[in-house]
């Protein structure tokens, strides 16, 4: 009797777990389907030219997504490059060099940083970061690296560069936390072995820690990418919100999440709304694409790592 009821409870529990897991797939499926359906009007009207159209003019009903794709991808790329360098460095310092009295407080600060709401980062960006970029960083970059088109042109403060830096600051905690945990998991035998062979601490990191942590690092960058691509509020506040594609990082740009947040509430014509839905669909596809690429990368890195280590 006891056994029967136990089995029943067990089976119910398993089925419930299955139900919840499956509901995630159902959710994503219906979301994609509804986005596709809502954007069908824009798709019928513009077709592929929606993706490479550079003009977004609500008054004349011409909608192209390219400037938003560009803004989202470039700002995320800037943010991720900076965040990866800083995040991995901090993680290495925390796990390989620092004593407990440094690692503890630093870890605490990093965890605190990831808990700050994005609108707070945005406000800080508009009041502190943007003025500093306008009067400090951008003129300095222009003076030293002005021969590269990226660092030329008029300086406004709100720009692609500002958005990239805000995204870097927001993704550093994610990357640092994951890489720190991965580096901690490196077996002591490996590190001690490298040191016993006469490696310096720096060589030990290159020989034992980084190869072991490689897939974890790529995974952490993936997590950071997810946050950067979809970040809305902070980016909207500092990117300048102008749909254009120019080489200079000092110029204002626009992102996909920002244009939805900005224009969705007041978009009244059906084609306009439909175009905004299609931007949402594009964002979903771009995110999926990057995740898939990162997934493949992790898989290849893992396979190679297994080949070299074991």
């Amino acid at each position, binding site marked *: 009797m006891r056994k029967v*009821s*136990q089995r029943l*409870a*067990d089976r*119910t*529990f398993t089925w*419930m777990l299955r139900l919840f897991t499956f509901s995630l797939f159902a959710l994503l499926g219906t979301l994609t389907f509804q986005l596709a359906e809502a954007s069908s009007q824009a798709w019928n009207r513009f077709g592929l030219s929606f993706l490479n159209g550079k*003009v*977004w*003019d*609500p*008054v*004349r009903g011409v909608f192209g997504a390219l400037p938003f794709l560009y803004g989202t991808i470039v700002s995320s790329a800037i943010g991720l490059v900076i965040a990866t360098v800083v995040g991995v460095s901090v993680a290495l310092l925390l796990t390989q060099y620092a004593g407990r009295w440094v690692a503890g407080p630093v870890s605490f600060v990093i965890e605190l940083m990831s808990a700050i709401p994005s609108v707070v980062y945005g406000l800080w960006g*508009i*009041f502190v970061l*943007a*003025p500093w970029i*306008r009067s400090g960083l951008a003129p300095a970059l222009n003076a030293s690296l002005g021969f590269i088109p990226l660092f030329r042109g*008029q300086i*406004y*403060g*709100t720009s692609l560069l500002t958005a990239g830096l805000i995204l870097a600051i927001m993704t550093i905690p994610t990357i640092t936390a994951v890489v720190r945990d991965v580096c901690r998991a490196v077996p002591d035998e490996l590190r001690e072995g490298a040191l016993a062979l006469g490696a310096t601490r720096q060589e030990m990191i290159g020989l034992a820690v980084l190869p072991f942590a490689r897939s974890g690092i790529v995974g952490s960058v993936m997590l950071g990418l997810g946050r950067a691509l979809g970040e809305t509020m902070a980016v*909207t*506040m500092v990117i*300048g*919100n*102008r*749909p254009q594609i120019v080489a200079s990082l000092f110029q*204002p740009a626009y992102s996909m999440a*920002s244009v939805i*947040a*900005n*224009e*969705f*509430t*007041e*978009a*009244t014509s059906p084609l306009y709304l439909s175009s905004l839905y299609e931007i949402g669909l594009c964002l979903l596809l771009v995110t999926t694409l990057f995740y898939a690429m990162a997934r493949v990368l992790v898989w290849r890195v893992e396979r190679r790592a297994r080949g070299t280590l074991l």
Partner: protein
Amino acid sequence: MRSLSIASGVILCCATLTGCGLVPSPAFLQPTPPKGLRPLTGAGSTFDYPLLSRAFYDYYNEFHQEVNYQPIGSGGGILQLVKGTVQFGATDVPMNNRELALAARTGGAVLQIPITLGAEAIAYNLPMVHHRLRFSGPLLAAMFLGRVRFWDAPAIVALNPGVKLPHWPVLAVHRSDGSGTTYIFTNYLSRVSPAFSRIVGTGKAVLWPSGVGGKGNAAVAELVQNAPGAIGYVELAYVLQTHMPYGVVLNRAGRYVAPTLRTATAAADAFAELTPSHFSIVDARGLSSYPICGYSWVVLYRHQPAVRGHELRRLLTWLVTTEQARASAVDNVPLPAVARRLALQQLGRMDD
């Protein structure tokens, strides 16, 4: 262990079922309705939100009826009205014929009632300039088109003789979110500048050829205050409360006029005829009229069920009469006589 897993299963099940609305949630979880009257619900314009939230607070104190207002944007307000999820919408631009036709299919004729008058100030950031700068419509159009690129350009100097202007680049700051504020401003610039009308046009969100965008009045104000050489259009109430420097604008009578409650009223009074299809009051005639002004509207169905309709009429009548006296205390322009007349006439057409 076993009882724990069963208990957790039961809790999870309950949570899902309540979440789906299959099982009514316990009474203690539901907000207690106010005694007697059911709350009225509305949604729409974010521009109206400060005004309406204060007004509805006053209304509750006076009549003990709650009014829930969701500031989801004018477009959203119209959509929710058509879908029947709210009893009134608020919009910065009256509904056009296409929207009215759509609404007619679901709920019949729509009444559009002006509820507040707004003016927009031209704010700028030139710390060394202590004079109040003068602007004209064509000059503003040229600055926002990116054609006047520096503050010491001849076009600006010509209007401001004797003012020492720096050789700083002009940074035109606009609203990045769709808004009635942008509609009024682009409506004005299109009226006074054929080039602006051709290149940009009139709309709640437009394709700006230059400058940067900020989300909401607050962000535009912040961008202007933080970027030397910036110029932007901001709600008058917002400028008055943040003490930003703002300019005077040349009106049709050839006078430079500052935005105030009085000059906005003068502009509204210059239009004897006000209807939901002739709603624009930019570039008004009259010596003391400020040229960049506009109304905001509440929209609702003409046919209402008896009790509901009575309550709505009482609310809106109160809003366009009694409550307007308090508007100037918070830097909102009280509704001029012509608009109040239209509002009451529209409310008189309600069937309930």
